[in-house]
């Protein structure tokens, strides 16, 4: 079972690496979002750190959506999805492989956007980096769990660029709220206040990774 997951993961990461130019375009979008938010809100240096978490997560969600959607567009080229369906691979294994690839993809995009937010919004991150990484990864997992399930669904729909955000964003509210609140607490140095937010993220991840594993087959069947 895990060999199948690794096979799919390795293939997806190799393709992401091969097509990294277009991934760069998503990171540029993330950067633009951060710059625009910063300029639009125009916070004073003292206020800026308070806004960093919201700007961070808003940029992550939009760039992440594009990255994951593109993953499935690639899968449909030459009907590779048909090849995967024909293989003896269990759909749940296929889902976990793609989920892992998407988490790595999101983490890489976040790692590129994070320093920029730190600089632009004067958010002091170095000291609390480990805690921050934990929060980001928790948020990533939940986001990728649902995005992987729904990207497979909307890739065939006509208005797919609109459809994925419309279906996914309301469902992702817990990740957005949990992520922002937990990031705020992490930036303030203590996880104390963030127990609720972390709980939401962990619960969300648990529910939707399991739901993804069970429901993925229904989404990619004939």
């Amino acid at each position, binding site marked *: 079972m895990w060999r199948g997951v690794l096979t799919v993961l390795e293939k997806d990461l190799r393709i992401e690496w091969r097509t990294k130019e277009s991934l760069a375009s998503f990171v540029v979008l993330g950067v633009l979002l951060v710059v625009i938010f910063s300029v639009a809100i125009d916070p004073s240096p003292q206020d800026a750190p308070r806004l960093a978490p919201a700007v961070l997560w808003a940029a992550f969600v939009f760039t992440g959506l594009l990255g994951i959607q593109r993953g499935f567009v690639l899968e449909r080229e030459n009907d590779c999805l048909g090849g995967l369906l024909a293989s003896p691979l269990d759909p749940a294994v296929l889902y976990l492989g793609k989920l892992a690839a998407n988490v790595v993809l999101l983490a890489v995009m976040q790692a590129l956007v994070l320093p920029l937010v730190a600089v632009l919004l004067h958010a002091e991150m170095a000291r609390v980096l480990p805690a921050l990484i934990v929060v980001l990864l928790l948020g990533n997992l939940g986001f990728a769990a649902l995005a992987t399930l729904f990207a497979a669904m909307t890739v065939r729909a006509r208005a797919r660029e609109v459809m994925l955000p419309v279906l996914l964003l*309301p469902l992702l509210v817990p990740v957005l709220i949990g992520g922002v609140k937990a990031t705020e607490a992490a930036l303030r140095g203590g996880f104390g206040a963030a127990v609720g937010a972390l709980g939401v993220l962990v619960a969300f991840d648990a529910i*939707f990774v399991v739901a993804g594993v069970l429901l993925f087959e229904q989404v990619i069947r004939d």
Partner: protein
Amino acid sequence: MRVLDALLPWAALVVMLLAQWLIFVVVPTEAQMGIVQRIFYFHVPAAWATFLCFFVVAGASAVYLWKGSRAADRLALASAEVGVLFCTLVLVTGPIWARPIWGVWWTWDPRLTMTVILWAIYAGYLMLRAFGGADEAVARYAAVLGIVGVLDIPVIRVSVRLLHGIHPAVLTTKEGGSGLTDPMMRTTLYVASLAMLLLAAWLVALRVRTARLEAEVVGLRRELDHV
């Protein structure tokens, strides 16, 4: 089943009339908020109907995915549509009530925030049904969304509580039954809720009938092509 279908509209009508009578004649006016508080007897029952509809969507979706029964798929679509209707009513009556009490149309209080998010999820469900294309795969996608939507409700409920709402003190009187001092108020709320649920059930039944007719038209058209 037939008897239930025929009985449903009448039951809904009778209980609804009883509810109107209770709301506008019998129940005493709430001390603090005055007459406008009666909106409460529409707002909360509509919220109950919304939640019930969305749980029916999830149940019917699960049955459709694992049993493949077309009727379950139609029921899921019907109760999603009716659910969004009642959710809209909640979102309309909410601000109309908040305006005179707090002087503001909208507050990010957990209950209202939750309702907006649910409205967005199931409006997305209806969009997926409409734009996802006619083939059978869309029904499966909608079913998956129907199940995921309901699984998300508890997590959303907890996460919106992390947002600080407005005047928590006032909320309790607005929200829960605890704010209802007079026992008659509580009875009125239950009757009004029952009336709204029966009404919702009737609307769902009507919508299922329409969906069945639509399926029949498709079937007849196919037959016509083969003749």
